[in-house]
């Protein structure tokens, strides 16, 4: 009973989201000021011919620093998972 109700609610939500998603204009943003700004100023402000790189490393450089930190943290996590056990220490199983 509860599973059927849950499934019905999920289906209704999915239908609603799908209807909204189908109605969205794709590839035609309402405002293009930001796009035009990046395309016009990538070469004179960031001095890079590659507009994608100028956005990733110049206009949004702080975001890239965050990505690099995420990679660093992921490596730390893997290192903690695969570390050597101390003598006498055992894996804990829950």
């Amino acid at each position, binding site marked *: 009973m509860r599973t059927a109700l849950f499934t019905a609610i999920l289906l209704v939500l999915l239908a609603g989201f799908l209807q909204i998603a189908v109605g969205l204009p794709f590839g035609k943003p309402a405002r293009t000021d930001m796009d035009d700004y990046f395309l016009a100023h990538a*070469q*004179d*402000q*960031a*001095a*890079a*011919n*590659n507009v*994608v*790189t*100028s956005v*990733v*490393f*110049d206009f949004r*450089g*702080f975001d*890239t*620093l965050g*990505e*690099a*930190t995420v*990679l*660093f943290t*992921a*490596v730390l996590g*893997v*290192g903690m*998972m*695969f570390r050597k056990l101390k003598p006498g220490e055992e894996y804990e199983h829950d």
Partner: protein
Amino acid sequence: MNMTKIVRTTADLFYPFCLVFGLYVVLHGHLTPGGGFQGGAVMATGAALLLVSRRYADIIQSLRQNTMKLCEAVGLLMFITAGLAGLFAGGAFLHNRLAGAGGLFGEPVAFGANPGVLNTAGLIPLLNIAVGIEVLGGLTVILLYMLSGLKESEP
């Protein structure tokens, strides 16, 4: 595990090309598709080729875990230092002061569609190199960690 001679020879033959191609992707990040993350991953592929073709005990002689950890930390620190340099030079964090100022990576860029010059874009190639070093070290050290746990079976 130790692969056959065919695999080992092929890996020995191909890993320099992987490294050179990765270096190309990193250094041309501001002109062609690619950049630090992608080029670093390509360079780590070269290390992965060596790792899958040889025994861990043999590979650890030349590809040390500590060196790769150092690479990773140095890459991230280079990125942060480049950002702080912009802050202390009187601009914002990661301010691109080198762009168009002459000197290293400082050649001005012509407006419009043009093939591009390698010696342009100021701070961006430096950040690309920093991220490339970091990704190379990070991915390689993950592979080394995972292979260090494998049981070695004698052939």
